[in-house]
């Protein structure tokens, strides 16, 4: 197959999954809403309704892209480390501590906090990797446990050291302006974070496709045994992939707290976004350069769902159902039988039967 053909197939596959997912969302809205037409309109057109909502969409997409990037790096090595959420809390807490320290009064705090957040995230990413390489501990369970632990420790740290009494100990004071990412468009959340996310995409692409480490990582993910026979130290690759992924997760934490969206640290600031990186990585097939586009597309749906949650009687959490169905449909066309199935129902008249299974 040529690259063009693959691109066409992939796009068709993604659009198919998106259409099915939207149909499911429409059905749920029809059942659950008293005013389904208006609700669906908010869901579909809401993100474009004002300059502010467009900004929120772009900002969410940047964060989703980073989360997707973190997952794609470990998925490419065929590791199922799911610790991005914990890394975000660790990175955000460290970044907040720096922003609220005397350092926060200078612009230096932005790069320093970003690097410190990445180191915190990398440390959290390293633990499950090391435990798997040395102790053969399943990385899925250990990374998930670390998410819960990191969340609790971040809350403890926030309550004891960062929170302002006025907030009822659930949020810090606003960071000094010098420690907040500058906005490119006034009164929107489009800020330095977008640039950092795009930069991270470029760096990960370069590492994966233009360095020996990236080649080894992709070979390990493709066929670990073959990679080991050809002399690749797959344990080193595995641990370094998880650590690098953790650094991205940590950076995402800094983006959250120092971005225009918060400009302070709040309990639960991550709001479940990290796990949505799984969808981004799966739909982008772990390709860094595809990630920003997938993030923009999904970010739009996410923003629409959020607005639907505020403005109508259908909760924003509907997006979880859409998300899960897209993952099921996109991930299941990985190999030939799935593809044949997709082709069959796309060619035939029974397309409506697929989502009900």
């Amino acid at each position, binding site marked *: 197959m040529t690259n063009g053909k693959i691109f066409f197939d992939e796009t068709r596959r993604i659009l198919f999954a998106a259409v099915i997912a939207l149909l499911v969302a429409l059905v*749920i809205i029809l*059942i*659950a809403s008293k005013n389904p037409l208006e609700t669906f309109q908010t869901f579909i057109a809401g993100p474009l309704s004002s300059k502010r909502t467009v900004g929120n969409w772009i900002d969410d997409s940047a964060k989703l892209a980073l989360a997707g990037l973190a997952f794609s790096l470990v998925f490419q090595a065929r590791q*199922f480390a*799911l610790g991005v959420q914990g890394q975000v809390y660790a990175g955000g807490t460290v970044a907040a501590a720096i922003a609220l320290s005397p350092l926060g009064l200078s612009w230096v705090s932005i790069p320093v906090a970003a690097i410190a957040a990445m180191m915190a995230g990398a440390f959290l990413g390293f633990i499950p990797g090391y*435990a798997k390489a040395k*102790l*053969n*501990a*399943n990385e*899925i*369970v*250990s990374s*998930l*446990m*670390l998410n*819960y*632990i990191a969340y*609790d*420790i971040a*809350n*403890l740290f926030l*309550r*004891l050291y960062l929170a302002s009494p006025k907030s009822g100990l659930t949020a810090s004071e606003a960071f000094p302006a010098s420690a907040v990412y500058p906005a490119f468009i006034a009164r929107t959340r489009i800020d330095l974070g977008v640039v950092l996310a795009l930069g991270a995409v470029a760096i990960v692409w370069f590492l994966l496709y233009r360095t020996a480490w990236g080649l080894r990582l992709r070979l390990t993910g493709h066929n670990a045994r073959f990679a080991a026979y050809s002399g690749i130290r797959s344990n080193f690759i595995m641990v370094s992939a998880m650590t690098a992924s953790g650094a991205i997760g940590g950076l995402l934490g800094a983006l959250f707290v120092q971005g225009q969206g918060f400009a302070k640290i709040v309990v639960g600031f991550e709001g*479940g976004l990290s*796990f949505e990186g*799984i*969808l981004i990585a*799966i739909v982008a097939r772990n390709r860094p350069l595809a990630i920003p586009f997938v993030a923009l597309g999904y970010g739009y749906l996410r923003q629409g769902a959020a607005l639907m949650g505020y403005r109508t*009687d*259908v*909760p924003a*959490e*509907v*997006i*979880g*159902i859409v*998300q*899960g*169905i897209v*993952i*099921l449909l996109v*991930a*299941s*066309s*990985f*190999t*030939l*039988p*799935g593809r044949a*199935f997709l082709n069959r129902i796309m060619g035939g008249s029974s397309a409506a039967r697929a989502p009900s*299974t």
Partner: protein
Amino acid sequence: MNEIFDTILSAAFVAAVIRTTTPVLFASLGGLLSDLVGSLNVALEGMMLIGALTAVIVSAYAPWYVGVLAGLAVGGLLGALMALFHLRFKADVILVGFAVNIIAAGGTVTALNYATGGDKGTSINLPSKAVPSLDLSFLDAIPGIGPVLTQMFSGHSYLTWLAVFLVFAIWYFLYRTPEGLRFRAVGEYPAAAEAAGISPNRLRTYGLVASGALAGLGGAQLAMFNFVGFTRDMTAGRGFIALGAVLLGRRHPVGTAIAAVLFGAFEALSIALPGILPRVPGEVIHTIPFVVTVLALMLSSKRRVTA
């Protein structure tokens, strides 16, 4: 320090451990059955959550046992859905499992909102029922230890005793029946099993359906006994801890049950500790079950051959 030991050694603590263990035990027995046939079920968390909500909603309109059965059935259906996407459409089982978890997290809030007419957090307005408790106070009649036994073992959910029974039933199935042998054979070396005329995919489907049904029962116990009613994300990682128990239990039902009791004990401890050690921050105490799970996993995995 003595206060901690006094608490742990009390009969009331044993009762608390039994209570906290039951949902995790159901889910980990389910996880064991699917792990044995080669599909690690990371969706236990989501299956428990959906099972819990289904049980609560159904029990508001039907007798309690119908609610429990509904939780079991919806879990089994989710297992069948996973089998369909994993085995028929060749998706990675981890991704399918996570898709189920994501659908569960969003879907339960959406469904709760719909069922309660606008409440996104709890089912407090639904008159959901509880699983009755089994009164064993006749144990009092045993001289000497009778009252202690009563305090430990009386007043638990019917489902707790079902879970204990299932540990032995699953052991018997796996190690004393031909079908159980096939189950273990598929997990051990699928190609050999296939050569012997066993269809691995058929058994994997059974494994996933059974794991979903058991996780659904765990959810029903959680929302109809440990707590009465549903709150969003009420499983709070129990499904993942159950997965840890499967890995820790070395693929054996009794080992899995022991691991589940271990995690249940630390959950009970994290509930009891704030009263004993008020100066230790609640957040730190809250991490105990998760820290214990990750440490146990690291320490126990070293000698394991299978990953």
